[in-house]
């Protein structure tokens, strides 16, 4: 009875009791994620000047690449909005195309981030160099790991959409993934603002 429809007047993802409760439950999880990233921001805020003998932020940050990363992730968040739009129009094919486009931007972001880490390592900044390096790379790495997880998750959901079509259950799963994906952009906005721009001031 898990996909029993209780209300037809709302979008598909809210129609089943399970789907509705899962979406609420995911928002509770997002709150835990907010606290997780808050602790990492706090760590960076406390340690960002502790560079030991290693490079400082302004010495290693490449603002052009950071802007590209920001735009890639912002764009993927934007295209992710159309996944939900397609879902609510009942169009599986268009939902999957938008998932694909979103993932391309997401993967572009990851490629840029991996290049960034390689650049840091070459510039002499690793997770072992200084408290600055540890806190910076833990914050960026945790975010990057989340993006990687989001990519894998979306691929599995796209397969399920093809197999099962848009039902109250699959729609709520995709909706939950979209919440997660937008949340990663929210975290990135704060990384961009307070780590990179803040570091360059």
């Amino acid at each position, binding site marked *: 009875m898990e996909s029993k429809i209780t209300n037809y007047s709302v979008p598909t993802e809210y129609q089943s009791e399970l789907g509705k409760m899962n979406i609420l439950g995911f928002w509770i999880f997002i709150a835990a994620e907010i606290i997780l990233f808050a602790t990492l921001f706090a760590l960076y805020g406390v340690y960002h000047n502790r560079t030991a003998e290693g490079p400082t932020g302004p010495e290693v940050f490449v603002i052009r690449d950071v802007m590209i990363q920001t735009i890639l992730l912002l764009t993927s968040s934007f295209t992710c909005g159309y996944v939900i739009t397609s879902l609510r129009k009942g169009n599986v094919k268009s939902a999957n195309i938008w998932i694909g486009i979103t993932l391309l931007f997401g993967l572009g972001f990851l490629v840029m981030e991996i290049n960034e880490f390689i650049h840091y390592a070459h510039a002499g900044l690793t997770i072992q160099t200084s408290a600055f390096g540890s806190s910076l790379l833990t914050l960026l790495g945790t975010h990057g790991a989340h993006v990687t997880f989001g990519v894998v998750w979306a691929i599995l959901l796209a397969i399920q959409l093809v197999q099962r079509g848009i039902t109250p259950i699959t729609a709520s799963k995709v909706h939950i993934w979209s919440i997660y994906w937008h949340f990663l952009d929210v975290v990135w*906005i704060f990384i961009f603002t307070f780590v990179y721009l803040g570091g360059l001031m």
Partner: protein
Amino acid sequence: MNNKTHASGVGNIIGYVIGLILTFAAAWLVLKSSLATSMKWTIISIFAIIQAGLQLFMFMHMSEGEDRDTKVVHTIYAIFMGIVVVFGSIWVMTAGHPIG
């Protein structure tokens, strides 16, 4: 709530354009303008908060569904706790003995 209002992509485009403008404006302010550092911090912080709000309400559909009050209150509480964690940590670790 009906399906039609939320199926429109116009809100998406507005959110995206505002996001891009705020991103470039923040970068320009920090890198090219000659404002005082404290002023730059204030403005880019406001820009970040606006962008986060856009994501939460326009993209993440936080304020929809029967559970919207629960979602909004719980998320705002988490944001408050996050702010306490960040600024509380920095304060307690720097007050009286400046680091760096």
